[in-house]
């Protein structure tokens, strides 16, 4: 696994059940240390792309290379490749209830390093550090279904931080969060970025994109990648954002309430 690129995606398409298109002819590269934001409206295929990059789905056509090696079902069946890949790449799901499946917060944070062969003492140390970093020590014995939305998001991030992957895939990380939690999360992502982690974030929140992106790729509602570029260039193109259902103009002006 050696290459200058983290991901090299060549002309991939993906369709659910072989019929329902989610991505069409997408080509994209992700460089080490980059904070790439995937912008697109609901249902444009952002989450599907992240699952493809995490080796959970496999393209109907086209190829994905991760760290210079083909990311395929056959490759992930090999223990050596699977361990190396899963240790380097982590995905935070949009729905935290999906991500948090363990019976307690501590079990959740310990899950990934334990499965990936890290020793018990080292896991305990990592769990403590991750819980401290995300300020969730007091939640350690709580079951995830008793947590608030913001707490669940922190636990989801801690469950990846304990693994400390090089590449973070974040699916709509700020959805459903109050402004304070959103601001905290942006700070967290900026810290990861400053530490040299590669981050791929799927979102339709232009404000978040502006704060965290070093590069942006835009998907339209017909599942095509329509633009890639620097944040200033993409976010300044109002026609593009409007066309892709990422910004809108009001026809009616607000009337004072009588």
């Amino acid at each position, binding site marked *: 696994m050696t290459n200058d690129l983290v991901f090299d995606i060549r002309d991939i398409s993906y369709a659910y059940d072989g019929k329902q298109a989610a991505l069409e002819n997408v080509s994209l590269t992700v460089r080490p240390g980059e904070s790439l934001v995937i912008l697109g409206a609901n249902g444009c295929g952002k989450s599907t792309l992240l*699952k493809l990059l*995490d080796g*959970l789905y496999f393209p109907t056509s086209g190829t994905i290379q991760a760290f210079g090696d083909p990311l395929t079902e056959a490759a992930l069946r090999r*223990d050596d490749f*699977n*361990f190396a890949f*899963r*240790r380097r790449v*982590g*995905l935070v*799901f949009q*729905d935290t*209830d*999906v*991500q948090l*499946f*363990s*019976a*307690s917060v*501590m*079990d959740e944070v*310990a*899950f*990934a390093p*334990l*499965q*990936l062969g890290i020793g*018990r003492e080292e*896991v*305990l140390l990592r*769990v403590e550090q991750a819980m401290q970093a995300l300020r969730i020590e007091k939640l350690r*014995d709580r*079951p*995830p*279904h*008793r947590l608030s939305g913001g707490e669940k998001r922190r636990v989801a991030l801690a*469950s*990846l931080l304990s*693994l400390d992957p090089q590449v973070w895939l974040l699916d709509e990380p700020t959805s459903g969060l109050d402004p304070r939690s959103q601001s905290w999360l942006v700070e967290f992502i900026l810290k990861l970025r400053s530490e040299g982690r590669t981050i791929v974030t799927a979102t339709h929140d232009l404000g978040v994109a502006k704060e965290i992106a070093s590069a942006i790729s835009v998907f339209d509602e017909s599942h095509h990648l329509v633009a890639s570029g620097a944040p200033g260039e993409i976010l300044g193109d109002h026609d593009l954002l409007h066309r892709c259902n990422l910004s809108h103009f009001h026809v009616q002006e607000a009337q004072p309430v009588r």
Partner: protein
Amino acid sequence: MSLASSKALPKRSHVLEDTLHGISETLERGLFAEEISLRRGLLQGLDARVKVLATLALLVGVSLSRNLWVILGLYTLAFGLALASAIPADFFIRRVWLALPFFTGALILPALFITPGPVLLHLPLGLVITQTGLNSALFLLLRVSTSLSLALLLILTTPWNTILSALGVLRVPDVFILILGMTYRYIFLLLHTANDMFLSRKSRSVGALSNANARRILASISATLLGKSLNLSSEVYLAMQSRGFRNTIVTLKPFRMQRRDWLWLFIFLAVTGLAIFLGR
């Protein structure tokens, strides 16, 4: 415009309300049990494995003892432990004795009347209560109430996820414990979803709802929940794979036995031994 109508609406079916009430009650009960398990009390401070082993040992003691006074002593012990563990006495008694007829009613009633032995009381219709029948009924009643009390103590003083982890001491496979934990966790999630769906339906229902319609709604909500749970299960599997799960599971076993845990384990085992010896 007045929201109150002068025309009385026909009586509605209670199927939706009853289901909603049942779901809310289950959620509340879970919340209350969890709140008790986090209180500072005698049993809450013990290692979960000690509680699992002690509960099993005392249950064996209750089953093997053939002396009514010994079983009564074990019930008193359970009640004392409940008080020392910050469990409200009235709640503890109600939870056991209200559930009792459900477990024992069908057995106790016939045993009272049909067990042969010296007659104690003559009843109308030629029915008699015998001394042996009364003894059998009392034994059954005390055995079940003491067993329920012991099990309730374990459940109320230990978070469910900790009980599951402690099952490892009984050599229950890790993967089985993980599945049980996930089942419990997602039952709550689906209960919340079901609650929201029922509330949403209720907020849009005006006027009478026939039993047939209420059942139809119930069926459609159940079908939607089934679909959601199937989707959830495949997503959860992906989330597990994403973090390195490959069909075998490695778990953290964070328990550490301390001196007081060993002491209490010894006490509980000694009480069990004594109960079996005295109750021969």
